[in-house]
């Protein structure tokens, strides 16, 4: 067939600017063919090229004694000792999930799993960080139901447990929900695989599902904002097949136990195009593929369509010459296609053939290393001062502090998410020691004494009010969540969800948030091992809250250090580590009880943060504390209430008094950072005090566990509620929105 002529209109339809197109012509030394235009368009899309974020991401600390692989590969790798390595990464699937929530979320899960096993790791856990609009709107319930259904449907069937994550709600996500999925895999540290096309003449295999027309230009779609007609793009969303992916995992892991494999990469965004030229780029080689050889499930596909298809459950791999039969034999066992579609070359070119005809011939360097890089203009929004202004004197104190606490506990962002995570298999592989619902999940390491902890965190409201502080807190809180679970935070993966980067206000939010995250990662010694940037999260010009999501990996020296927020016995002391300030700015309380998204979020002194984390971890390791819980959304009162009711089998009351001269609502519901609530046997208070003194951490005894009521009183406030009332508020809230038929 004759390919369309490359016209200005066609160039614009491929989202390439005039300057970018001119650059293509310089790289090729001629005008591109239609197929070449398609290839450049996806490779230079924001999604694949990181052209607007690259210069900023380079400011993250990325190395450390435990880091075996930093950014640049399919996933980051962390050394766990004993020859074991943790492979992990987070990715977004926001745009597809808005257009088609079930399949969008499902294929998000499938994509990140492939990024993990491609490194030679068995995927053993998934977490997701989700953001939706308020649930009183039917469409948001539809989106959330679809996304949760997609994660459940795909994750359960593919055989990777979804062990945790978080779900938060705000108006700004109504037209742009966030679906960020993290996958963790376990590998032998000396048996890692990389996406490199090495060895000139080696065969390039296409394995997995057949190629269809689904998902063409998905990467480009993810690099544009939405409008009222976005639903018409449903055909660009791919359809996932978890069964096929399960077979692909097993077949690839089996192949990795042979010596046939040279390099391997998932065909994700931009499909065959991205996988082949990235592999060649990393290998310093070239690659030649013949689209005629690609297994297809639709007739009459053009080379352009084959190269740009984002059909799911496909991998590209390079095998050692002479091992072709080994590869074919393993994939045949799983009834999967494994076809040689090309070979590695030494000419540094990506050459695409359609039989004898060459339809694209592009220097790999031009596509990858010479892709455009932008330092886009930034400007602090004119409204920033306005949203930061907060006059506390104008905010009335609650009449009934108990009622305010119940409203906070019932706020969907704080409320129990069991109705969500009960739909996920969170126990497969029998590793889940602390499952969903705690500050972090804790998994044991089979055959070793230790374990790992994982948390995801990111507060869009804070980042909206102050992007730098929001970035700091995303890291600090994720680390704190891992610490209170008994683990030492060691490495970060992240997903940066922002609006349109060509708008200077958005770019300012981005650079500030990255600056905050980099500072916190530096101070807490948790290098960034990779991640994902998702721009263009806006619909009809209205952006989401800037939402950096941090995935924090922690290591437990011994699995017995695993700690949860729930009180363990009546009669224990309840103690606050850290200090409370008058931090109501940006709080859940201001939003829920006063309808305000206003003020400066709480600041974080990173040295103080570090000390309190060290202190808590030492106390856990010494066996001094029996429960530990981060004070976050909803403040101290919510943290104390959660201590009472998070263990459904064993609710335990509490009687406390929170001392301090602050306004009582700030004392109870303020969100000062660097605070941890712990409980301990009375006899251990001296030991805790000694540890805290050594770290310079203030210790405040609040009261004692026991009984079946939540009693919290001081000079200016008073709460006395039965645990049944708290439980109903917290546990009943979310399920009320999803009543079964």
């Amino acid at each position, binding site marked *: 067939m004759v390919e369309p002529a490359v016209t200005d209109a066609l160039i614009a339809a491929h989202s390439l600017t005039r300057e970018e197109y001119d650059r293509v012509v310089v790289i090729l030394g001629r005008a591109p063919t239609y197929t070449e235009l398609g290839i450049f368009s996806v490779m230079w899309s924001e999604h694949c090229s990181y052209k607007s974020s690259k210069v900023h991401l380079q400011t993250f600390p990325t190395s450390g004694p435990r880091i075996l692989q930093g950014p640049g590969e399919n996933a980051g790798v962390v050394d766990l000792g004993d020859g074991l390595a943790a492979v992990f990464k987070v990715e977004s699937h926001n745009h597809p999930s808005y257009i088609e929530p079930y399949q969008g979320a499902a294929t998000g899960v499938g994509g990140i799993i492939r990024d993990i096993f491609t490194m030679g790791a068995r995927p053993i856990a998934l977490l997701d960080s989700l953001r939706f609009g308020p649930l009183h709107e039917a469409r948001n319930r539809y989106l959330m139901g679809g996304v949760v259904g997609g994660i459940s449907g795909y994750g359960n069937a593919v055989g990777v447990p979804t062990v945790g994550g978080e779900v938060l709600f705000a108006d700004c996500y109504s037209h742009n929900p966030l679906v960020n999925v993290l996958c963790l895999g376990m590998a032998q540290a000396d048996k890692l695989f990389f996406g490199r096309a090495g060895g000139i003449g080696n065969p390039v295999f296409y394995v997995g599902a057949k190629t269809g027309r689904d998902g063409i230009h998905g990467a480009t779609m993810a690099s544009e904002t939405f409008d009222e007609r976005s639903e018409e793009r449903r055909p660009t969303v791919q359809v996932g097949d978890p069964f096929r992916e399960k077979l692909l995992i097993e077949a690839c892991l089996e192949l990795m136990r042979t010596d046939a494999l040279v390099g391997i990469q998932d065909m994700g965004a931009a499909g065959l195009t991205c996988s082949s030229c990235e592999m060649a780029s990393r290998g310093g080689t070239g690659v030649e593929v013949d689209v005629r050889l690609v297994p297809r499930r639709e007739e009459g596909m053009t080379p352009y369509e084959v190269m740009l298809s984002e059909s799911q459950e496909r991998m590209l791999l390079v095998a050692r010459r002479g091992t072709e039969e080994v590869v074919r034999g393993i994939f045949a066992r799983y009834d999967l296609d494994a076809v040689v579609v090309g070979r590695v070359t030494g000419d540094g070119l990506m050459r695409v053939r359609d039989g004898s005809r060459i339809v694209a011939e592009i220097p790999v360097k031009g596509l990858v290393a010479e892709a455009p890089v932008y330092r886009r203009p930034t400007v602090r929004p004119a409204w920033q001062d306005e949203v930061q202004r907060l006059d506390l004197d104008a905010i009335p104190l609650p009449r009934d502090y108990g009622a305010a606490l119940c409203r906070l506990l019932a706020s969907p962002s704080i409320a129990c998410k*069991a109705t969500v995570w*009960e739909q996920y298999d969170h126990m497969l592989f*029998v590793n889940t020691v602390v499952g969903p619902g705690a500050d972090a999940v804790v998994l044991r390491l089979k055959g070793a004494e230790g374990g790992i902890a994982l948390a995801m965190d990111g507060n869009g409201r804070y980042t909206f009010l102050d992007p730098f502080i929001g970035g700091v807190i995303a890291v600090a809180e994720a680390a704190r969540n891992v610490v209170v679970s008994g683990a030492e935070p060691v490495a970060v993966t992240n997903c940066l969800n922002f609006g349109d980067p060509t708008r200077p206000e958005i770019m300012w939010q981005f650079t500030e948030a990255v600056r905050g995250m980099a500072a916190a990662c530096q101070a807490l010694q948790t290098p960034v091992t990779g991640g994902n940037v998702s721009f263009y999260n806006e619909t009809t010009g209205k952006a989401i809250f800037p939402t950096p999501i941090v995935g924090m990996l922690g290591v437990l020296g011994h699995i017995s250090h695993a700690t949860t927020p729930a009180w363990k016995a009546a009669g224990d002391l309840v103690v606050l580590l850290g200090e409370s300030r008058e931090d109501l700015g940006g709080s859940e309380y201001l939003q829920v009880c006063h309808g305000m998204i206003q003020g400066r979020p709480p600041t974080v002194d990173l040295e103080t943060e570090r000390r309190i984390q060290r202190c808590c971890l030492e106390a856990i390791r010494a066996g001094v504390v029996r429960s530990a819980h981060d004070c976050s959304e909803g403040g101290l009162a919510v943290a104390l209430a959660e201590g009472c009711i998070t263990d459904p089998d064993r609710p335990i009351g509490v009687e406390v008094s929170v001392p301090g001269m602050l306004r009582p609502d700030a004392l109870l519901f303020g969100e000062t950072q660097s605070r941890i609530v712990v409980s301990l046997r009375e006899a251990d208070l001296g030991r805790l005090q000694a540890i805290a003194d050594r770290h310079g951490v203030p210790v405040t005894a609040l009261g004692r566990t026991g009984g079946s009521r939540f009693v919290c009183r001081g000079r200016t406030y008073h709460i006395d509620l039965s645990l049944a009332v708290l439980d109903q508020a917290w546990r009943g809230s979310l399920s009320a929105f999803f009543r079964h038929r």
Partner: protein
Amino acid sequence: MRFGIIVFPGSNCELDCRWVLENVLGQQTELVWHKETALGDYDCLILPGGFAHGDYLRTGAIARFSPVMAAVERHARRGGLVLGICNGFQVLCEAGLLPGALLRNTTMHFLCRQVHIRVETAATPFTNACTRGQVLRIPINHNEGRYYADEATVARLTANDQVVFRYVTAGGEPTEAANPNGSLQNIAGICNEGRNVLGLMPHPERAAEALLGSADGRLLFASVLRSARTASATPR
């Protein structure tokens, strides 16, 4: 004892069963791929949880045609022990080795949570280390776990003491609230007339170590070991 764990494409609990049998109970296991047509000499076969053949069409509907199933049936007819867990239970029903069917949960969605089940009979090779009426805490993990059979079949199951587990409250009451999926008469597990084939929806291998929240599931495996040792307890 030698356990054969049948692996269908899409099974995913085979490694967990192997872990518990080998590392917790010190037994030998072998994974058996579904394309095998002859089985080695196993004391007990396990059909593990997961999504055999993607559970496409209907849970277990394609798996019953896997080549290995003829050998599983021969093993069962000879009186050999067969334990179907979750998806394995669904496959056994589809294959006709157990009566009834597993329908979609009445909640209309997947459910993964700890539940309580009551041992209704200790007179099986899978429950002889339990006592009748004993309440076990074992998690479920399924989308299609609602046991259903016609009246005559349920009457026969009851009369023959083939209902092995029922969903109950922590206190042991088979209430509607304790029934997570709408199963008929709270049925969580049944055996065949010969009592050598057991299917249950809860996952005993996920409750075999206190570290993970419950070790009650170990009793099922301990029962199998005990029945192998006691000649009188072997299947008729």
